[in-house]
């Protein structure tokens, strides 16, 4: 790469106006993506600090660092911040916002003002939740199970619930914007089956956001209303049903897992193709598997209630439906693997994260099958096995994908390259730290250590210390990219429009792109991932 000849474009979205107003009133999807990036990084740090406190407490068997009440608040707020304020918006609101118009060859999303509004709504919801935190926190678990949340808890449930209610609308508006944009704004020649697979995953994710989030919104509103007034929707003393709350809650919150992991799958498809220099194997299957996951994801919520008095028959059906999700998930894993087969693989940072995703997601997914089996689930319900399982999906899957995507598109976002050497080291540190943190938790859970307690029997200490040690390594791993990515903004080498030699419309425009994305409307004449075959590239 002759970087000496690479110049920054004279006009790009980052120098199109300076000053705070040009950012806070922007309608440019790329700037809004960066606003989101800053906001979710802030919440990631907050959520991470809660995790630090949790792991410090669990380094010793006795509850010595914090009281049991404080511990309840710590894991609750860790969950709420990480799920609703980091993981749900992570890839869609940042990379999705930045890339959806670029990838389809549009000037912006269909509704730029709505896009900015969604960021402000997110911030407003975040402020409510932060307010709840500083005024004493909340101790219901991120799941808000009734009747504890509606009758018993004395903590700041209402402001937290309102914060989540409000933030939900930012999610709905983002999903709505993506759906309309993908339907109506594609450049000439950009047919559905020429779209990069990232867009299929964004589309599937948007469907879940639009269909699932309102159900959470009404549920959380009912919880708040029940606390405020003497409504008895979920209060058995008044004839209400706590399990109805669980049904409503998981109708959103199980699909929400796919809001977190589907975008990461889209990122991995892009990275695997670019760093193997091959089209993704079985494009149609990978595209439809995203849709299948979105649809099936709505039919499995009952597997969260195997021990909540669900009938044997519904447990059986929810169990079978949960197994079915494994099929489209496995299609993806096999197709990525098949893409790598005989590909020209280069081991750059995004590819390391993609490989990390594939391995960790596979472990997370397979242990999900354990939990979908009624008998085994009864054994490990509410143990650290469950905690380990969903962290493999959410951290090992979603955050690995997010980090991979951030590195892959960073040159496009910033126009500059990060330090590849440091980045690879950080990727390896994160992978090692992650496994050391969460693998022992599978064993702990299987041995019977329950979740959500600040003290535990002494025989579990060795595994807990391993987990806490892993968490500190993981924490350092996350800190390094924060530093070198910020450093690269000023001192990084200029990237040029296509540093990876990748296909896709986003790589045909300058880095950083101009405000209107393309100087001329691109015309698409071929499918995604048209990398030259091995024979072609040898002839050339």
């Amino acid at each position: 790469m002759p970087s000496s000849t690479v110049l920054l474009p004279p006009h790009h979205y980052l120098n199109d106006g300076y000053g705070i107003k040009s950012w806070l009133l922007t309608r440019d999807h790329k700037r809004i993506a960066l606003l989101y990036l800053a906001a979710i990084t802030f919440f990631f740090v907050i959520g991470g600090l809660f995790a630090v406190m949790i792991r410090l407490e669990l380094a010793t068997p006795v509850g010595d660092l914090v009281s049991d009440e404080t511990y309840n608040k710590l894991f609750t707020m860790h969950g709420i911040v990480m799920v609703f304020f980091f993981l749900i918006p992570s890839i869609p609101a940042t990379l999705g916002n930045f890339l959806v118009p670029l990838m389809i060859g549009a000037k912006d999303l269909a509704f730029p003002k709505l896009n900015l509004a969604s960021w402000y709504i997110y911030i407003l919801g975040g402020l409510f939740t932060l307010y709840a935190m500083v005024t004493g926190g909340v101790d219901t678990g991120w799941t808000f199970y009734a009747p504890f949340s509606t009758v018993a808890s004395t903590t700041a449930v209402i402001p937290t619930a309102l914060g989540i209610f409000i933030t939900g609308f930012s999610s709905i508006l983002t999903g709505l914007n993506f759906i309309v944009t993908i339907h109506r704004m594609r450049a000439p020649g950009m047919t559905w089956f020429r779209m990069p697979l990232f867009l299929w995953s964004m589309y599937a994710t948007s469907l879940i956001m639009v269909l699932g989030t309102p159900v959470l919104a009404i549920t959380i509103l009912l919880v708040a209303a029940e606390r405020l007034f003497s409504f008895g929707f979920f209060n058995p003393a008044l004839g209400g049903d706590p399990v109805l709350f669980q049904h409503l809650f998981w109708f959103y919150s199980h699909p929400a897992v796919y809001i977190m992991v589907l975008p990461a799958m889209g990122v991995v498809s892009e990275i695997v193709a670019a760093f193997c220099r091959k089209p993704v194997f079985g494009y149609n299957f990978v595209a439809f598997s995203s849709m299948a996951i979105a649809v099936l994801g709505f039919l499995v919520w009952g597997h969260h209630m195997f021990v909540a008095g669900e009938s044997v028959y519904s447990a059986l059906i929810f169990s079978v439906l949960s197994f079915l999700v494994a099929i489209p998930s496995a299609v993806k894993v096999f197709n990525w693997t098949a893409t790598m087969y005989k590909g020209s693989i280069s081991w750059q940072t995004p590819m390391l994260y993609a490989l990390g995703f594939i391995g960790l997601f596979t472990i997370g997914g397979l242990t999900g099958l354990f939990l979908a089996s009624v008998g085994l689930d009864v054994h490990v319900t509410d143990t650290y096995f469950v905690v380990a399982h969903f962290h493999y999906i959410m951290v090992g899957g979603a955050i690995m994908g997010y980090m991979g995507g951030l590195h892959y598109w960073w040159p496009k976002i910033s126009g500059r390259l990060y330090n590849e050497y440091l980045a690879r080291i950080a990727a390896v540190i994160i992978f090692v730290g992650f496994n050391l943190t969460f693998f022992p938790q599978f064993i702990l859970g299987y041995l019977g250590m329950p979740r959500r307690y600040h003290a535990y029997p002494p025989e579990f200490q060795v595994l807990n210390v391993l987990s806490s040690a892993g968490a500190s390594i993981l924490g350092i791993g996350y800190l390094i990219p924060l530093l070198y990515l910020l450093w690269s903004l000023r001192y990084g080498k200029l990237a040029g429009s296509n540093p990876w030699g990748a296909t896709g419309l986003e790589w045909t425009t300058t880095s950083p792109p101009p405000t209107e994305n393309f100087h001329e409307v691109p015309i698409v004449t071929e499918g995604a991932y048209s990398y030259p075959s091995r024979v072609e590239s040898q002839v050339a």
Partner: protein
Amino acid sequence: MPEAVHHSDALAHQFDSLEQQKEAATLGMWVFLVTEILFFGGLFLTYAVYRNWYPDAFEAGSHAMLIWAGTTNTAVLITSSLTMALAVHAAQTGRRGALMLFLVLTMILGTVFLGIKAFEYYTEFTEHHVPGAGFHLEGPEFYHAQLFFSLYFVMTGIHAAHMIIGLGIMAVMLWWSWKGVITKDYYNPIEVSGLYWHFVDIIWIFLFPLLYLIGRHAH
């Protein structure tokens, strides 16, 4: 053709043509209405579960509703849907006066609905039908009827909130019509607002029988 309409002030920069803009806005509103269906869906599910568990209490609750108020409100809202549809037609045919008249009529009918609703709430309040320590209802189903009234207040309350938002939208549409933003070539905001208004009406069309009619004559 896109060249010809490029000069229109109504065309946002991200679109190539007014037609594309119109299609996008319409699809956006439909997607939004789907989220609304799921939002209310949670309430309808809750209603279905408890009606199934406590049919007698729900019948007693329905009995205590002001049937004349609910019926009048249904007629008022259906009429407002008619005036809304006429407003869209007036916008399409470029008759500004008629458009503004029908928007004002729609808003008046919406306000009448909310006024009657407020009167109903006042009546429920004075008759001790508000769930809580002061709740009272004649008959043996006293206790679980609280669930009926909880649902009644939440469902109609959220519906009323949608009506108030609808009135706000109509006020903006009226202002735009008055300023001349809405033209024969650019009437899409009226049409999309109309979709929302009709949707809120349809929610009421489901609420009315569920809360006022079903089981009313069981006793």
